[in-house]
């Protein structure tokens, strides 16, 4: 039975397979949006997608926690509020990388652990996720964070092994997808396994960036007063870009928006950023993280902390790639560790 959890999908058949996925929902896949940028967008056909992409600027968290969403509307005169029913249509995320899959797994822990967030819950259940393997660029360090491999959090995972994909089944929903399209998939042969080994060794050998994770938490704790924070705090623009592009960042703000009639309005949950000055500000004017140095230190410490043995950073390299001040996340930690001066 176990061999049924691995199948081969010829690249010729992927288009056909994606047509059948339409019955599971609207398909979103990485689309090239500019010379160096990709984005998960709705596609009619996988021909519009670029499955060999490195990273999208905004991670797939946007499908589960919306950048801005109304929690409820209210009417002051009636003294009532009306919860928004999650009516999100089912969707298929095609081509999610292991780093992002791991990030989504960790997000689910936060949103479903002690207080189940119904929006998150319904969206995850409404979503079919197809993962895909990738080749690291100079900013990727997911091998260091142990997130270059996705154990779960997807329906199917496609390993690129040349002219075909080795398909891994990650859920019962995924298994049913295979069953429903059995004519498109073939059994795994010895040759396929050899091709998989070659592809994996090649992928693992192509990492150039390494973040030493051993004892990182202690190192961050001991370096609380290090001058390194000052150095990078001065460079930091406190713009919050790193938070927006981080697949693990999920700070949010809650705001009330009043309509012009001063009677009705809505309460909105929005992505927020720990790098912004108001993040630690309390009523009365005291700010627990008033300087960019303190905020940068807080962010790096948060990323370096562990949640059930999983680091809060999945090594996707987005914060470094998109930082307008060109601050390199790994470089900060290498300096703290004394690996570089």
């Amino acid at each position: 039975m176990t061999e049924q959890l691995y199948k081969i999908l010829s690249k010729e058949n992927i288009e056909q397979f994606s047509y059948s996925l339409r019955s599971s929902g609207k398909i979103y896949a990485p689309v090239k949006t500019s010379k160096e940028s990709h984005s998960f967008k709705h596609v009619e056909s996988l021909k519009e997608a670029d499955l060999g992409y490195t990273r999208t600027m905004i991670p797939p968290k946007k499908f589960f926690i919306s950048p801005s969403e109304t929690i409820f509307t209210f009417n002051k005169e009636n003294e009532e509020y009306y919860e928004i029913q999650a009516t999100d249509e089912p969707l298929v995320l095609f081509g999610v990388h292991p780093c992002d899959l791991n990030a989504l797994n960790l997000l689910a822990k936060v949103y479903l652990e002690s207080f189940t967030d119904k929006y998150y819950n319904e969206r995850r259940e409404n979503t079919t996720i197809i993962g895909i393997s990738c080749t690291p660029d100079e900013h990727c360090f997911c091998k260091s964070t142990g997130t270059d491999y996705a154990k779960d959090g997807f329906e199917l995972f496609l390993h690129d092994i040349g002219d075909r994909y080795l398909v891994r089944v990650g859920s019962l929903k995924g298994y049913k997808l295979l069953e429903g399209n059995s004519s498109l998939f073939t059994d795994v042969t010895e040759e396929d396994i050899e091709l998989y080994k070659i592809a994996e060794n090649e992928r693992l050998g192509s990492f150039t960036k390494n973040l030493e994770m051993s004892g990182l938490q202690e190192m961050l704790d001991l370096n609380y007063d290090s001058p390194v924070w000052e150095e990078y705090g001065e460079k930091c623009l406190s713009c919050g870009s790193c938070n927006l592009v981080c697949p693990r960042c999920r700070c949010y703000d809650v705001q009330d928006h009043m309509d012009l009639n001063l009677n009705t309005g809505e309460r909105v949950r929005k992505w927020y950023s720990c790098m912004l000055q108001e993040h630690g500000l309390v009523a009365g004017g005291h700010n627990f993280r008033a300087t960019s140095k303190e905020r940068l230190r807080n962010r790096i410490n948060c990323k370096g902390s562990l949640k059930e043995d999983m680091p809060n950073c999945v090594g996707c390299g987005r914060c470094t790639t998109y930082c307008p001040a060109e601050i390199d996340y790994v470089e900060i930690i290498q300096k703290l560790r004394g690996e570089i001066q």
Partner: protein
Amino acid sequence: MKENNPLSPMKARITEIHKMTDIEKLITLRFQDPKDEENFSYMPGQFVKLGVMGVGEAPISICTAKSDEPGLELCIRNAGRVTNAVHRQNVGDTIWVRGPYGNGFPMEEVEGKDLLLVAGGLGIAPIRGVLQYALQHRERFGEISFLYGVRCYDLMLYKDEILDYFRNGEEIGVKLYLSYEDKEDEVCYGLECEQDDRCTQGMVTKLFSLLDQRKKNSVALIGGPPIMYKFTVMELEKMGFKPEEVYMTLERRMRCGVGQCGHCIVGTGKSIKYVCKDGPVFTLWDAMNTKGMI
């Protein structure tokens, strides 16, 4: 709390408003749904999110101990956008509440011990809840010493209660000590003349010199502005309090109350904590292990 969404509030109506100072009001409210009223249980040190539709929500310490009396009492300082809107509400107005959140003071754990309560300014709100709890279960606790620091008489909260403890507290085993910062404050000076072994001009830490020698079996429970903790802890350490014998409630920006929104995060990679969920009450041992906590 509503089942579906941790951010959905319960409807309440304001039944009483007492002006305590120029900037603080004591507001009593009742939940409108009898089920909410019945289910709303809490420990001193827990907090609620108090909301005005169209303005937003603010975290507010619960300042009482749960009793048979229905309703909830909150001490609100007019300090920001939301609390300003709360101050503009009238008796009969609707107000929205989520919670209670946080761990609260571990009152059962400290049973059988003497209590040293230290409060500065608005920090008296959660500490008053602790005192009420101890008095409700008087036989479970030893001697209670209560140090309260105010800027001046006009800003003293729960004046009637405080003065009653100050003058008659010993009848119920409560020794109240009072400090005031304003040297020109005539009323407080009058109190100092009344009982100079219980009242002094200066910061709350000055009151430690008036305390009897510490008995071994005691714990300290603290609430106050951020600056107060470091200095109070120094005094407590001098008295011989161990890190696990000091409890303090911390203030942070807390948007969600359920450990999701990230604003109240504190600590390093080794010790990250969410004040709203892991606290707001922490021991000194927690603080020693969590850089940036106090």
